[in-house]
């Protein structure tokens, strides 16, 4: 059953990911990406990472992609004029991709116990929100502070770059 769900979600996810690349209209691409991320959240659920899955839907599919759509609408981007695909880019890209997939598959099949199903979890009733929260605010306190600074810098940057008139 889990395998079936895995297949459904992953095939859908890859399909929508492919559509992002193929679609000419940016709005269609963005909507495909939303679907792709929702399927990805489904994959997280099959991995028992429910909190992460919810966050994925909220932050990515909800916030980030809305930002994308918002910008696309704001700039009133039309369907892309079909530009001639550079053959060199195509083959170069294909070569890079093949190399990457080869290295990745080689790395995967050499991992030990890679084709075994997941072990049973015994969480003892602690929800993963609690576990992640404790980890985040205790052990990972320092990176968390730095991430706070990152958000601050990003805010300054966005305000600076897009405010109409600087004071």
């Amino acid at each position: 059953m889990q395998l079936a769900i895995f297949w459904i979600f992953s095939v859908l996810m890859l399909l929508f990911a492919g559509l992002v690349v193929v679609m000419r209209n940016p709005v269609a691409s963005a909507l495909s990406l939303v679907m792709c991320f929702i399927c990805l959240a489904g994959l997280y659920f099959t991995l028992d990472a429910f909190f992460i899955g919810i966050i994925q839907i909220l932050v990515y599919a909800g916030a980030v992609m809305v930002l994308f759509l918002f910008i696309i609408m704001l700039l009133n981007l039309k369907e892309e004029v079909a530009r001639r695909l550079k053959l060199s880019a195509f083959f170069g890209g294909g070569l890079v991709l093949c190399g990457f997939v080869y290295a990745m598959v080689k790395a995967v099949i050499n991992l030990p116990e890679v084709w075994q199903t997941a072990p049973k979890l015994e969480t003892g009733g602690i929800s993963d929100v609690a576990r992640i929260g404790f980890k985040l605010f205790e052990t990972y306190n320092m990176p968390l502070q730095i991430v706070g600074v990152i958000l601050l810098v990003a805010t300054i940057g966005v305000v600076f770059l897009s405010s109409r008139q600087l004071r």
Partner: protein
Amino acid sequence: MDIANFAEASATLGHYLIVSGLLFGIGLMAVLLRRNIIILFMGVEMMLNAANLSLVAFSRFHPVGGGPAVDSQVFLFFIITVAAAEVAIGLAIIVALYRAKQTMHVEDLDSLRF
């Protein structure tokens, strides 16, 4: 294949890793082939999410103390946050560029040539 077996069957680590690798590859293709800056961004987002999928899969298949390895899930939080910040900055620059130049195409970025 009988029903009981089907109900029992579940995906392995290898399945997840290959799927995440393919997602990464599709993202890479988007970056390499498309010329629209916004689509390039979407490709990068796919690549980051592929990394996230690998992280979650690893955390589930190498449990620590009975539960999934939470370290990687915490790391995933950082990645999502950073990605969001990057998107915000990126879209701000794109809007500024669009105001200045009315283009969304990498090929039109040509003022820097020697």
